[in-house]
């Protein structure tokens, strides 16, 4: 970042910084080094929270829920229905 750009970033209001935040985060670069954050505790806290939430979400991925035991019965029944319907269609005489 050039000195001029750095100065502009320093002078950003919180509103302006937060308006840029979705794009800044999506770059994948370390937003915590942004000049605005040097002097802005509020935006630092916001960024830290958003990072914490994203990280916590990632930890959810391996956690799996169990569907009810009845679900397989429903699936089997539906498969059987489809097969019967398909077979009756195949055996029907053409008009």
């Amino acid at each position, binding site marked *: 970042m050039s000195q001029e750009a750095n100065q502009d970033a320093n002078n950003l209001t*919180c509103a302006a910084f937060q308006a840029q935040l979705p794009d800044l985060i999506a770059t994948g670069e370390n937003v915590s080094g942004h000049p605005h954050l040097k002097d802005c505790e509020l935006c630092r806290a*916001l960024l830290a*929270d958003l990072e914490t*939430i994203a990280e916590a979400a990632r930890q*959810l991925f391996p*956690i799996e829920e169990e569907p009810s035991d009845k*679900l*397989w019965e429903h699936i*089997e029944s539906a498969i059987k229905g489809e097969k019967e319907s398909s077979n009756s269609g195949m055996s029907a005489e053409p008009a």
Partner: protein
Amino acid sequence: MPQSRFPAHPSDAESPQPGEQALARPVVSDARAASTAGTLDPDTLARAQAGDHQAFAQLYSLHKRRIYSLCLRMVGNIAEAEDLTQEAFLQLHRKIATFRGDSAFSTWLHRLAINVVLMQLRKKGLSLISLDEAMEPAAEERPGRSFGEQDLSLSGAIDRLALQRAIDNLPAGYRLIFVLHDIEGFEHNEIAVMLDCSVGNSKSQLHKARLKLRDELRTYPQEEGRR
């Protein structure tokens, strides 16, 4: 510049199956989907592809938790998640013979299940006309603005149940993008294709979803304390 603490999701090179929507490939999901399902015996897969019902039942047992959990996260409703899981496995039954083994089976099934959920959400009107508008929650559901607030920040680790509950309470559009990006590991360009919206919209919705979650999580301890 050092990398962000926001999870990055590298791209997967695999192509979609013919006839599938240009669904994004969960890169991570290739490894991730495989890592959470049990080991699939190639013989079992081959038998299921040849119409062996017992083999198909084994596939169901191996993958039911992963697929159901995906559906549950995306719709936030147990009954609907079970219906979608059923539809995903019915589609699997219809299409399994077309699986060519270009990708991991778990990844292929994962994609198929996401398509089923998205089809259902479209039927419900989420993206029929203008996803950008349809996904925008009502004013009362939007996250609060952060600048000028003096609220406390989240402190360190987030309770898993609190996060899960907060995700379930997100408006549908926010939840969908948050689950696809932050949990399932899709990139914004992939989500944009899947949901037929702009990349900018995907970024913006994800940001709003995280802000909304932050609002929810900051009130969580107080609400719990009142119970």
